[in-house]
């Protein structure tokens, strides 16, 4: 039995004890998948799982646990379980209320990379199997290798076989085979540019931002999206004008709100309609926190967040000698 069938069988066995299950299903748009909410047995046949399942379904964990009276089941990839660990360790959801069905994925495809490589031609249909993607545009047909289009986060993943938390674990048929890269390699590269270049890079990127808040609303950890300080009049942190400076300041609010909590799932960057590289900002803060306080978010439920504790003598902090 292949992975998808094993998953459906497992869901069939446990659906009676759960009120609702969140999973993946087919989408009308090629190369995409949609979330689906299953409540009874005859909807299980709509579930799928393949290399296109890039969405992080932990987005719905907080809202469902508030609305629904009963147990919830979520189908997750191993990297997404880190969001759940972080939510539980911050006491935003109850461990007994959710059942985690974790699937060991063999990498996910970034559909924006595929679209870029075809120089923007419209994709009419896409078929996917274990190694290849077969794409048809209006006048041509392409055969692409999956391993060339993995999402960036797959290149440094080391928990796809042992997720930090799970209730049921479904093993994959195909192992993730990708050339490992250093996690913060692109951040180190970016920091080599001059300050002026960095500044104009961000000004240009944010000049297209339309403040749609898709990045904030899709993040699993931003549970405050209905009370966000950026839209309030009292205290007046920001104007509502849609300009580059305001957009940049909003991202900085997000960065410091998620410092030490972001698990780098990449959903914010995927949801952005303008393709702004938001993940870079989050990774930079995480890199500093890892270097200063030796802490990685999302791996252990009992670990205390670094910015809520302190040590009397900090080894890694070097004071600024100015007097």
């Amino acid at each position, binding site marked *: 039995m292949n992975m998808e069938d094993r998953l459906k069988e497992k869901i069939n066995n446990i659906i009676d004890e759960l009120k609702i299950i969140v999973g993946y299903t087919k989408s*009308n748009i090629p190369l995409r998948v949609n*979330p689906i909410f299953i409540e009874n047995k005859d909807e299980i046949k709509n579930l799928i799982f393949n290399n296109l399942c890039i969405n992080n379904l932990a987005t*719905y964990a907080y809202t469902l646990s508030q609305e629904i009276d009963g147990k919830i089941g979520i189908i997750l990839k191993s990297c997404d379980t880190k969001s759940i660990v972080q939510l539980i360790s911050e006491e935003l959801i109850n461990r007994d209320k959710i059942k985690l069905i974790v699937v060991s994925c063999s990498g996910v495809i970034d559909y924006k990379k595929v679209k870029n490589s075809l120089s*923007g031609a419209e994709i009419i249909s896409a078929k996917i199997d274990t190694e290849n993607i077969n794409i048809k545009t209006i006048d041509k047909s392409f055969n692409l290798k999956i391993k060339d289009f993995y999402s960036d986060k797959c290149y440094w993943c080391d928990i796809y076989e042992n997720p930090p938390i799970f209730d049921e674990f479904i093993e994959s048929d195909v192992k993730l085979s990708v050339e490992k890269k250093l996690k913060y390699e692109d951040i180190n590269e970016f920091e080599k540019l001059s300050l002026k270049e960095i500044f104009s890079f961000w000004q240009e990127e944010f000049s297209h931002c339309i403040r749609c*808040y898709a990045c904030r609303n899709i993040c699993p950890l931003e549970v405050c*999206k209905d009370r966000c300080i950026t*839209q309030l009049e009292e205290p007046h942190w920001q104007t*509502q004008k*849609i300009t580059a400076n305001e957009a940049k300041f909003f991202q900085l609010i997000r960065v410091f709100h998620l410092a030490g909590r972001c698990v780098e799932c990449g959903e914010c960057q995927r949801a952005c309609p303008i393709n702004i590289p938001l993940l870079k900002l989050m990774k930079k803060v995480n890199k500093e926190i890892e270097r200063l306080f030796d802490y990685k978010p999302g791996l252990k439920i009992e670990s205390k967040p670094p910015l809520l504790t302190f040590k009397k003598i900090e080894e890694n902090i070097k004071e600024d000698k100015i007097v």
Partner: protein
Amino acid sequence: MKIVSFIKKENLKSWLEKISKVSTIYLPIHDKKKDIIDFLSWTDFIEKKKASKDDNDERYEINLIEKTKKSPKYIFFPPTEKLFEFEYKKDIDDPELVNIDLKTSFNDVINIYIGDNNKKNKVDKKIIFAIRPCDLSALKKVDIFFGEGDIKDPYYLKRRKNTIFISLGCNEPYLNCFCTAVEGNPFNFEYADMGMIKIEDGFAILKLDNKVKFLIEENKELFENKNLENKYREKIDIIMTKAVEKIINYWSGVTIDDIHSNIEKNFNLDMWKTISKKCISCAACTYVCPSCYCFNIRDEQKDLKGERYRCWDYCMNYYYNLEASGHNPRSEIYKRYRNKVNCKYNYNYKRSGQFFCVGCGRCIDICPVGMDIRESVDKICRAKF
């Protein structure tokens, strides 16, 4: 439609350059590095090309094949617009009196420039080139909102007058286009001043209004006028039929005339909750929609000076219906989504006789979780109440 004229692809750029000297022209420009296509003015296009010449000469180019990411409504209805400025001043004679000085920003509304950086001249005429029929009919619907009735919006109307629309038909509608399902057509040039269709190695002009004849007559050498019907008529007919066939008719089991009444009847169905469960209530679909018009007015003040401005608002916002008492009638996501669908397919249909959704499909392309408005409307209409 009679074929009026024909221009070869090679001559198109020189024609646009000539027009850009007498009026501002907006056209769809593709930024290849970011993979975004949007309407930009000709001067901005030339400036950006110059600025990026060092790293990549090919970064910006005119793209007349693909759909733009955002609609051109921002040219008339900008995301942020200052309405007026105010300043509190103490009266010189009577220290207990405080006056407010108001200064309108109405005259800043027209600030389009032509020519290069050294000599920018303000000009009154605008041309929107290669606007699609769906975007143009959406603009006409936004005109109803801002320009009809007892109270008209002077800022919008000032930007809107003296505009020429050159429309380009869609030879290859996208997967998510559904203009024919909402009473539209990919070659509908009813509201355009000039209508074009791409054929073989150039563009055939199928409609030419009298007031824009000067655009062709002043550049006669770039256009062909002989023997057009024989050469191109058959091919144009084939393209037009194929394009209309390609658009899938999504409505199954309900006719266009019944949509609004069915949606109204099924207002209280529980199905709304299941349909909108995956929505994350961001503003992406609202801000790319060519016919969404909601805005927010804010006063912001620092010390004694301030300004009143308006900015785009989105109905999927939690705060959209928040009342001054603190009560929020649409605090759940499904209520806001239900309002959105009703606004496009029901309330505005009853008021003005036309759907406000034009079937451009941008909301479906851009949604991060795959909400599909066609599917929602279809499911609701077919459900038994």
